[in-house]
């Protein structure tokens, strides 16, 4: 591994602030991981996502995994978060991110993508889905990821 941090303190602060605002706006905890991923990024992201919440089936959470070396990004949402952030909304956020990434703007792409996801989720505890207690899901394993 190279010496030094991948991002400057200012860049980290921008990312931290974007996640904080997204969480404040939507009430959904967001986590970002940037680094190399071994194997299938979708499976790796879902497995990591399961460790971020107490009950992955009921608690909302969003994990964004970016592997700059492999040039791939994965947005994973728990079933509860998926009710508020549809796969289509995730796809649009992913597209916004990759558009910026391809221009070399990693931090800008992440902040705009995070903002899009928070806006797609809507304000915290005001949407009907957020106010309803989460029911056990009967959805099949895996997610129909558009990509």
């Amino acid at each position, binding site marked *: *591994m*190279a010496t*030094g941090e*991948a*991002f*400057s303190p200012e860049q*980290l602060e921008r*990312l931290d602030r974007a996640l904080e605002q997204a969480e404040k706006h939507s009430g959904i905890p967001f*986590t*970002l*991981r*940037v*680094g190399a991923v071994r194997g299938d*990024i*979708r*499976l790796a*992201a*879902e*497995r*990591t*996502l*399961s460790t*971020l919440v*107490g009950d*992955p*089936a009921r608690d909302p959470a969003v994990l964004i995994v970016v592997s*700059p*070396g*492999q*040039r*791939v*990004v*994965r947005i*994973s*949402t*728990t*079933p509860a978060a*998926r009710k508020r*952030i*549809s*796969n289509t909304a*995730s796809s649009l*956020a*992913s*597209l916004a*991110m*990759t558009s910026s*990434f391809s221009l*070399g*703007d*990693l931090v800008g792409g992440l902040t705009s993508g995070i903002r899009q996801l928070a806006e797609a989720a809507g304000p915290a505890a005001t949407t009907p889905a957020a106010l309803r207690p989460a029911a056990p*899901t009967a*959805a*099949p*394993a*895996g*997610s129909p*990821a*558009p*990509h």
Partner: protein
Amino acid sequence: MLTVAGLAMFTVPVFAATASAAEIGTKYNPDPLTVLQTWGIYGGTIAGGFLIAILLAAWSGRRSGPTRYRPGQAWEHDDVWVGKRPEEIEGAREEKAVPGAGGASGNW
């Protein structure tokens, strides 16, 4: 700004030395400059300014700190987490598949 400062650092002593020379002729009939003096003032000043600017740029580049990730290059850094890391959450949780999870992927 640094270039101007560098030029000033170089030219002020040269002009001062020239002005303080004992024999510079009169106000109406100044002594002609030698070829060496002419090249020193008009060529050396410019070349010296560039040299100082290059040195200053190289020096500030070396002081710019650790290597950051540059888009397009291979990722050779440790993982960066923003938000809560799994290790920071109380109680060890087993990694498992999440039925009904959603999301999307993309590449560039």
